[in-house]
């Protein structure tokens, strides 16, 4: 389970490798908030290498989305596989987030 951050133009891309669950969601939250604190405003979380997300993981995405928006920024998601899409549909979080099919589409959407 790891989070890797890279910069693509004005967008911070976060790769979530493994699971996003109760045991590591604080780490993701802190890493993104640190970047927000430094002045970054555009964030794309890429779930291409993510296994599953639990409710804590979903919760942290909601929380980050709010905090980033409060600072005038945007958080978008990309590369959800069918399982993750099901999770977002079940919880209707697919209506809360902008979700792109690929990292490239996600970057273009900003």
């Amino acid at each position, binding site marked *: *389970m790891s989070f890797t951050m890279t910069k693509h133009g004005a967008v911070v891309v976060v790769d979530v490798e*493994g*699971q996003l*669950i*109760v*045991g*590591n969601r604080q780490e993701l939250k802190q890493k993104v908030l640190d970047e927000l604190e430094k002045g970054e405003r555009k964030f794309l979380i890429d779930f291409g290498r993510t*296994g*599953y*997300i*639990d*409710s*804590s993981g*979903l*919760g*942290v995405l*909601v*929380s980050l989305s*709010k905090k980033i928006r409060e600072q005038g920024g945007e958080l978008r998601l990309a590369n959800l596989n*069918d*399982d993750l899409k*099901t*999770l977002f549909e*079940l*919880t*209707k*979080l697919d*209506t*809360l987030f902008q979700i792109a099919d690929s990292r490239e589409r996600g970057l273009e959407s900003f």
Partner: protein
Amino acid sequence: MRNRRRTGGQPSDPSGAGVPLDPARLALELEIPTDVRLIGRIVQMVSREVRDFDFPPHLCSLNVPVALSEALSNAMLRGNADDPAKTVHVRMAVDDRGLVLEVSDEGRGFDLESCTRDPTTADNMLREDGRGLFLMRRLMDRVERYTEDKAPRRNVVRLTLFRRESAAG
């Protein structure tokens, strides 16, 4: 963490509704300390076992991992109040009808109905919490809770997933 693979049974007398866990079909039994950092590994272990029992891939990659992750998280953080001295037990039984997972903690239990919130309402969707029980109940065919009859009267959450041919049962 102690991993005890059991093929024999042990006395089990769960009170309450639903499909009891058949001790003769026990495929996995674990006793783990309260430490959320262990959840990923436990879920991986159980998911591998489920795959070996020929459940469809998406049940092994989505339904079981997420529902079990939620049950473990609740057991550790709510049932055991994040106390590392307290333990969580995981038991899994499989037969032709399906799979039963039981996660128990040392807490006093809770009411499933009143604790389940709908996270899809406009207000609740913006909350960081409140999706765990909802997801468990959407991803598993049955979710039940009971308190063991015998001391130490652990709080048990039972998750049932039927094989698709017998899902109506």
